[in-house]
């Protein structure tokens, strides 16, 4: 009987893609393993193979179509003698086992959130803006710094010819050549050490970890070799290096590929730790990180890569470390977060507003140095604090913030500080359990109501 061919999910976080090219036409006979089409995701162009054998009865989605949702029917496969019309209206596909689409939205808000920076704006008022994804902003930040300084180079697994495992380094090989965009063997411990040596030797390496989960193999060089040497050398031997890559959970990739390392790195004197949420911050902070004379841990997020925001269209846009951004001013409760946690914080603030609770939302942007002054200032106004992060509870970023607020603003608190985190478990694979393990917008809403006694 006729079967529908559905738009496949080709990565854990894919929601839609471009049907770039059909390699079969109606009437062709295909068997399993034949390549049917080329599908372009935001990460790569991939070939899509037939699972069943049959005759291509009908092509539903023409090649070149963008934004084809995962699991939408794209063609119909029929058996000898059948017609494609045997399938009447395309029925909704059977629930796919993969990609919990609803749980992994491109996190940047679709509609630009009202952004207010109470302290000082990152760019002059009236600056022209352009819409970019976080992925493009990171790439542009690196490219601009590579143009500016010949000693900056990028090394890591699949950064060059593959154009980046998550397409962040797309186009850099073409512009800068193989001398400065270097594919490494799969050898995290080794190439992290080579990067540190190159930094001692006068270069400014950007070392990409395909994900920060793999950087655990390189932890010794990050901490012992990169972070501590300036101190151990009495100030002689600095290590200007950026370690960057996606951090935290993607979607359905299991316990070993889903850890948020923010709290780990934040603990280490000698390191600077950056964890941007928006595209503008990703670019401005990346440029600052590359120019910094210290080792910088730059924690990106796979789910955020595809989110778009306005990025100032300036020749040289940088954001200083240690300066939080107030996304939304409010008077009843302060919600502090960073990285993907901001998604939940901002969504929660919207919902709280519907209930008449005015939340102030602060994006820390850098965890070390940390702009605790902005948190304190906000707490002095709202008298309530909720922190939001994806990592684990014990020794979390939130518990540090909580201790600082207790010591420096105890008298301003009208309720205990709530530190919201991921659950205290290795990340499960099952869709329902994963959903349960992650922090949710509802939990943030609940916590905010709790501390405002509503």
């Amino acid at each position, binding site marked *: 009987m006729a079967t529908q061919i559905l738009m496949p999910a080709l990565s854990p976080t894919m929601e839609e893609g471009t049907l770039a090219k059909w390699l079969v036409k109606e009437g062709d006979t295909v068997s399993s393993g034949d390549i049917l089409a080329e599908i372009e995701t935001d990460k790569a162009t991939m070939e899509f193979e037939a699972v069943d054998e049959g005759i291509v009865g009908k092509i539903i989605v023409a090649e070149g179509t963008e934004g084809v949702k995962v699991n939408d029917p794209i063609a119909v496969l029929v058996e000898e003698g059948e017609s494609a019309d045997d399938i009447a209206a395309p029925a909704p596909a059977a629930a796919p086992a993969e990609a919990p689409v609803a749980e992994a939205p491109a996190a940047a808000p679709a509609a630009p959130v009202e952004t207010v920076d109470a302290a000082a704006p990152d760019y002059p008022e009236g600056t022209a803006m352009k819409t970019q994804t976080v992925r493009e902003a990171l790439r542009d930040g690196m490219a601009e710094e590579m143009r500016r300084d010949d000693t900056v180079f990028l090394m890591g697994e699949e950064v060059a010819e593959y154009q980046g495992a998550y397409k962040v380094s797309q186009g850099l090989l073409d512009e800068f050549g193989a001398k400065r965009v270097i594919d490494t063997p799969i050898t995290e411990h*080794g190439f992290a050490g080579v990067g*540190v040596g190159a930094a001692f030797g006068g270069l400014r390496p950007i070392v990409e970890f395909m994900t920060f989960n793999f950087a655990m193999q390189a932890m010794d060089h990050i901490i012992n070799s990169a972070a501590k040497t300036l101190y151990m*050398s009495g100030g002689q031997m600095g290590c200007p290096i950026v370690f960057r890559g996606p951090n935290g959970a993607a979607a359905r990739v299991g316990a070993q590929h889903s850890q948020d390392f923010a709290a780990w790195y934040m603990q280490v004197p000698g390191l600077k730790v950056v964890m941007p949420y928006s595209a503008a911050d990703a670019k401005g902070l990346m440029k600052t990180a590359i120019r910094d004379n210290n080792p910088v841990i730059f924690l990106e997020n796979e789910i955020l890569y595809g989110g778009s925001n306005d990025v100032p269209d300036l020749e040289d846009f940088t954001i200083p470390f240690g300066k939080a951004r107030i996304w939304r001013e409010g008077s009843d409760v302060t919600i502090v977060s960073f990285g993907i946690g901001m998604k939940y914080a901002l969504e929660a603030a919207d919902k709280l507003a519907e209930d008449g609770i005015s939340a102030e939302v602060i994006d820390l942007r850098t965890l070390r140095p940390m702009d605790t002054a902005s948190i304190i200032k906000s707490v002095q106004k709202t008298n309530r604090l909720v922190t939001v992060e994806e990592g684990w509870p014990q020794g979390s970023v939130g518990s540090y913030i909580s201790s600082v607020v207790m010591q420096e603003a105890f008298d301003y608190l009208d309720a205990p500080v709530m530190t919201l985190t991921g659950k205290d478990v290795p990340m499960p694979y099952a869709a329902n359990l994963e959903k349960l393990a992650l922090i949710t917008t509802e939990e943030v809403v609940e916590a905010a109501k709790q501390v405002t006694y509503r």
Partner: protein
Amino acid sequence: MAARKTTKKPNISKEELLEYYREMLLIRRFEEKAGQLYGMGLIGGFCHLYIGQEAVVVGLEAATEEGDKRVTSYRDHGHMLACGMDPKGVMAELTGREGGYSKGKGGSMHMFSREKHFYGGHGIVAAQVPIGAGLAFADKYLGNDRVTFTYFGDGAANQGQVAETYNMAQLWELPVVFVIENNQYAMGTSVQRATKSPDFWERGAAYGIAGEAVDGMDVLAVKAAGEKAIAHCRAGKGPYILEVVTYRYRGHSMSDPAKYRTREEVQKVREERDAIEHVRELLLTGKHASEDDLKEIDKEIKAIVNEAAEFSKESPEPALSELYTDIYADA
């Protein structure tokens, strides 16, 4: 250990021989003094002495040119003295004083000198190996023809990151000489108890890296091998491995119980293969120096070491404000 490849009638000047003698003696006397100061409680923590291995660094340093780099492990005092760092600054670092190379904040295992192109002083076994390859990477990237000597021991040679580094160094043809100082013992574990493939230099073959073993108790043989290795790197042929077979007379660190080898074994090496005695003989038999000349040198060296020891005691401890400096470089 490999039999000494007797140095062919050394085609070497009196001045050079005297220079090697002086430098090896400086390291030995310096280390003996460090051992004393440790015993007096003036040096704390870990202190790994280089006595017995002097010919390795002195021979290899003789092969280097200005601008070549070196990086090593925690057994680093000899390397620093051999590349021309000031004995006063090294000793004052051992005593944790302001006049030390790291202002007293690094200690025995962590000293550096940009001026002398000495990149540490690394306390995690084998961590200096990819770092050394990275230094060579920088030189190649910058287009100069400098070479990096990356020293590590027979113990470090079994670490995974050494294999990772060999692979990348050969892949990218980095100008790095991997110097394996095989002193027979990784802490208290002999080579035979740690590996079934004790010819460490041969492991390079798996990656296509050329190399050889050399008698590390013969400073002239070491220098000749170093020159060959450097020429290989400067010619753009990629890395080279030198396994320098040597012997550590003292314990792994000051707290070594010395239960893993016999006193006789150590004594035999001292009597039959000592690197300094070897040069002393060459000097005397070649009539390059008299006993009196050598005594004069001994006196000079002793004076330098005593001066370093005095400095290391007199130099004040770092100011308390130093606790919070040098954590970050100016952005």
